[in-house]
């Protein structure tokens, strides 16, 4: 089963020195189990060493290789050629950087800028609850953990924020999730502060419940569900 595909990648390029943007076509043959990051590496090796792109772990855990393939934000380390052909019913793909932050070069965006929204929600336990008196660990019941453990899988790849209807004046789905997951975490005691962030002008009022965040999430987190819990005012 070593089926080969004749692929065309229409890749958005950007040169920061000349500030020129253009789309460059690359034609390449690839077998079905190659991932899109492998295709970029193949282009670098065989056709164009100047194409810049970003990745780190290439196991869907670091969230740095997020890009838009035929308009859909996803992790390119998880997208197999075979699945892409099936999903988009074509062998021609547009490849664009995520729109959540300025482009540094080609497919590389400024992740520091992207993370500014996440930092606004303080993605850590602000005020930890006292430790359990009978031991060092803090105990969370399986029922409570079950209600939010899915949300802890977020890797901040910003695919959801790119897909979201609301692009301005909004924290974005992943930052909202970072806040909500700590609101639901019994180890966090700074609930009031978190609620203030959640219902601020950049919080729940900006969510349109389009659920594009859930649709594109590479970690299959139902982000819209968690944001809707905030609107409902009931995290139980």
């Amino acid at each position, binding site marked *: 089963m070593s089926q080969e595909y004749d692929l065309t990648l229409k890749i958005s390029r950007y040169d920061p020195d000349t500030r020129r943007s253009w789309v460059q076509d690359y034609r390449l043959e690839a077998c079905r189990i190659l991932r899109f990051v492998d295709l970029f590496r193949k282009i670098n090796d065989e056709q164009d060493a100047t194409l810049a792109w970003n990745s780190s772990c290439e196991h869907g855990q670091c969230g740095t290789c997020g890009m838009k393939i035929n308009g859909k934000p996803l992790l390119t380390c998880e997208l197999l050629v075979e699945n892409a052909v*099936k999903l988009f019913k074509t062998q021609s793909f547009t490849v664009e950087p995520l729109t959540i932050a300025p482009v540094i070069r080609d497919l590389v965006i400024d992740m520091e800028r992207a993370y500014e929204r996440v930092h606004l929600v303080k993605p850590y336990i602000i005020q930890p609850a006292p430790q359990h008196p009978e031991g060092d660990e803090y105990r969370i019941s399986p029922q409570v953990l079950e209600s939010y453990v899915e949300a802890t899988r977020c890797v901040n790849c910003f695919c959801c924020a790119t897909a979201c209807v609301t692009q301005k004046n909004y924290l974005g789905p992943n930052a909202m999730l970072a806040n909500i997951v700590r609101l639901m975490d019994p180890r966090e005691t700074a609930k009031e502060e978190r609620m203030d962030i959640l219902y601020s002008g950049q919080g729940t009022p900006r969510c349109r419940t389009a659920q594009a965040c859930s*649709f594109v999430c590479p970690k299959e987190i139902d982000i819209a569900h968690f944001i809707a819990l905030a*609107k409902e005012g009931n995290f139980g």
Partner: protein
Amino acid sequence: MVRKIKKLYGLQMDISVQRTGVEAFFIGILERSEWLSYYARSRGWGFIMTWAHRIAGLVLALYMLFHIYTLSALYEPAAFASKMKFVDNFIFSFFEWALAVPVIFHALNGARLILYEVFRIRNDAIMIRWVFVLSAIYIMTLALVMLMGNQEVSPGFFWLIVAIASVISATIVYKRLRHTQNGTLWKLQRVSGALLLPLVSGHMFFMHLNYRVGHDVDTILARISAPGIKALDVAFVSLVFFHAGFGLYTIIGDYVEDSRIRKGLTVLISFVLGVFAYAGAKIVLSI
């Protein structure tokens, strides 16, 4: 849960869902549109529904301004009657019917959003199907009623039923929202939506039961002279303009980053819609 949603949408990789005949036929037609197909695959149908909701809302807000302008002719019944003669043709009747598309879609899709947001109804792919099915039933029934044009109903009875339905739906939504920390206007938008769903769909239906109800000046004047109808219409006008105003304010907030421009546009919209709401209420109360 999310896997189930993606399966129902039928657009996620590695999943192919067999749809039933009618649905597959309509989805096939819709997906012939490059634009729809692009967003259905890249953002999901919920994203498209949100845009359709927004566009329908904008169309209805603009129509409301036109509607109040048209109704202002009621101050001179003879002028109103002559305007109605002008619109008495197939083209205008078609537009009157076509207006039901954004009206019922916006109303039912709004109900879907409220059910998702505050009633935890998460099987959204099925809800989207219901929005389309119920919209189609309403639009076709309205077409049938308009073509027959000979239906009669007691206004008092009809509007009593509609008012009771509105109050019940709004009370249910209000009870779910009142203790949440969402903003007051945000909550009011949902409550006004719940009130408007029966009111607007009822209004469109009632006005087309027969030709006289919506076009004969004497019939219109006789109806709105009743105190109960006056009260209902004033509430109706106020709710519609509040709902439209907050909707537009929300859209502005989604696109305008500069807070001064945002405030300026908010003031402008509040002023324009406030004037039209006042004009609408004045027509109802003074005629």
